């Protein structure tokens, strides 16, 4: 049931990762981007994309809106053609191959259900196009609806369904064609929090049991980290880092990754050195920092900084504390009991393990 786990990469540098994958046999690679670029006029939607997606993995493309992740998905689906570079799906270059000849299916952001067809006819649309007989395709359609827990909704119209139900129909409609690769374009974006969390679990379970390659586009870092085997972080049309969720979260390689994924404290080389760390660009996770009253005796081997508390934000069981340390603002995420009496304006002492300071590549 954990087909994704052995595929997790141990490499930390994206260059290494790509090099290692390039040696991998072609059948292990579901989608390969080789120096792919797509421009809209003067706007470079994506540029210099060079990465592989392995067969059977849950691969997320994470980034802010406009970072190129959706364009990337549309390039795989065939709705866009690259201006440069090559995209291969299971080893075959797909230049000029129209979407209807690609063994990939898409779950659209707005679900794109056909308003004139009922749920069952929506789900069996792909099979009908393939020329499958009505009885056979309806049997498969019902199976697919059972898979997404929508039995009994066959005759409904899409307009009569809730957002979550539409999302499931869209999923069933794509899966019934047994694609080799399933593309999901922010499929959970329109759902409320509770439903979104439920669907995250279900999607992941579905992907494991079917052994399919999922390519999942999202701007929600929590979603990407919790579901994926590997995550590619996009910024401004380029991939900044590809790696397992652990790598992305704990060993970010660039300021953008550190800040976008989990809101890390990013310290310049001089500040890092001042706090006792290496003279490098450094990421320091908020939850790695402990907050104590001023003058607290720090255990040997720990690093510390003194400053003035600016703000204590309520976050349920945790508190987000912002402390000004001689002009450097540090953010710490600590258990509520640690800072019960802390008020803004009071002096406090922060400390952390030297291993929590993760050195990143210098900024370009």
């Amino acid at each position, binding site marked *: 049931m954990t087909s994704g786990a052995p595929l997790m990469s141990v490499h930390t540098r994206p260059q290494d990762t790509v090099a290692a994958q390039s040696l991998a046999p072609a059948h292990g690679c579901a989608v390969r981007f080789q120096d792919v670029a797509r421009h809209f006029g003067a706007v470079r939607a994506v540029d210099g994309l060079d990465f592989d997606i392995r067969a059977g993995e849950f691969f997320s493309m994470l980034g802010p809106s406009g970072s190129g992740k959706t364009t990337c998905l549309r390039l795989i689906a065939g709705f866009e053609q690259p201006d440069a570079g090559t995209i291969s*799906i299971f080893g*075959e270059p*797909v230049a*000029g*191959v*129209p979407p*209807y*000849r*690609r*063994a990939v299916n898409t779950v659209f952001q707005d679900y794109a259900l056909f308003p004139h067809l009922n749920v069952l006819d929506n789900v069996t649309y792909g*099979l009908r*196009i*393939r*020329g*499958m007989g009505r009885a056979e395709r309806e049997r498969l359609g019902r199976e697919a609806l059972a898979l997404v827990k929508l039995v009994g909704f066959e005759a409904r119209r899409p307009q009569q369904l809730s957002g979550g139900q539409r999302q499931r129909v869209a999923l069933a409609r794509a899966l019934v*064609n*047994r*694609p*080799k690769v399933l593309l999901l374009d922010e499929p959970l974006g329109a759902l409320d929090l509770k439903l979104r969390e439920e669907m995250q679990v279900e999607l992941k379970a579905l992907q494991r049991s079917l052994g399919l390659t999922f390519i999942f586009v999202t701007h929600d870092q929590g979603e990407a980290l919790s579901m994926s085997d590997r995550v590619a972080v996009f910024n401004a049309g380029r991939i900044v880092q590809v790696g397992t969720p652990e790598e992305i979260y704990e060993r970010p390689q660039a300021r953008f990754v550190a800040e976008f994924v989990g809101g890390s404290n990013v310290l310049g080389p001089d500040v890092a050195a001042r706090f006792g760390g290496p003279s490098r660009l450094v990421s320091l996770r908020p939850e790695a920092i402990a907050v104590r009253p001023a003058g607290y005796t720090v255990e040997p081997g720990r690093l510390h900084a003194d400053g003035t508390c600016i703000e204590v934000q309520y976050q349920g069981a945790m508190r987000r504390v912002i402390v000004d340390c001689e002009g450097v603002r540090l953010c710490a995420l600590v258990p509520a009991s640690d800072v019960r009496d802390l008020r803004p304006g009071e002096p406090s002492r922060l400390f952390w393990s030297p291993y929590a300071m993760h050195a990143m590549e210098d900024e370009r």
Partner: protein
Amino acid sequence: MTAGVLDLPIPRESLSRRFSDALFRRQGLLLTLLLVPPLLWLGIVYVGSLIALLLQSFFSIDEFSGTIVREFTLKTYAELLQPANLDVILRTVVMAAAVTLASAILAFPVAYYAARYAYGRMKAAFYLAIMMPLWSSYLVKVYAWKLLLAKEGAVAWAADRIGAMPMIDGLLSAPLIGGPSLSVSYIGQFLVFIYLWLPFMILPIQAALERVPGSLVEASADLGASPNQTFCTVVLPLAMPGVAAGSIFTFSLTLGDYILPQIIGPSTLLLGQAVYVLQGTAGNIPLAAAFAVVPIMVMAVYLLAAKRLGAFDAF
């Protein structure tokens, strides 16, 4: 590319599928194929005809034989500038302007009510109430007024009952716009023109007003404007694109109409009638063509001005 999984049938390789591949590979091929038939029709049949018309306005007619001389000349346009012909043009443009202005004034309350105060079933009823007369038969509408305005008709009967007859007689005795009876006067003609084109004015104004968010009116009231001030400084300027759009119709339709003036109004010709008579009984196609160029020119200027007012966003 092979199909996803072996146990599902592969779509048949039909000719249309191959053709579809070509449409995908060549950007613009689909667009071209879609555009060619309508462009052939409108470009060749319609624009071709317009150009043919324009060209004929540069021919002239031989005064003795009455045949058309197919040589380039500006003689016909010079003829257009003769007082009698200029008079026809001027009269028509004034009529069109008057009809447009009156339609806008009459249309505004209906459009304003429909846009701001009617909703649900009421709104649908309003929409239909404006659409139905717009689409109902032009000739029947003209005919209705022939019935109404006849000497023995309903208007005269009603005026007689309420004692308004002296008022109508007073109006008819006015110089220039008056006449022996409503059905043969400019007043009657003007009234029927308004009736015919009013829906064309209401709909664009309503569309423009509906695009004015209610919050804007509230904001104006919130900032201390009286309802009248709000109307004059917020609503009216925002409705202007709609008025401009509607006026394109009222103006253009009045300029070109030659049926209504035949049936209701004085015997003096409007532009449309002049074109009709010249090309028909008079057989002077070049002068008819030159006359026809006038509304094209007037409308071209009008459309340019209307575009500046944002009329094309109000359709």
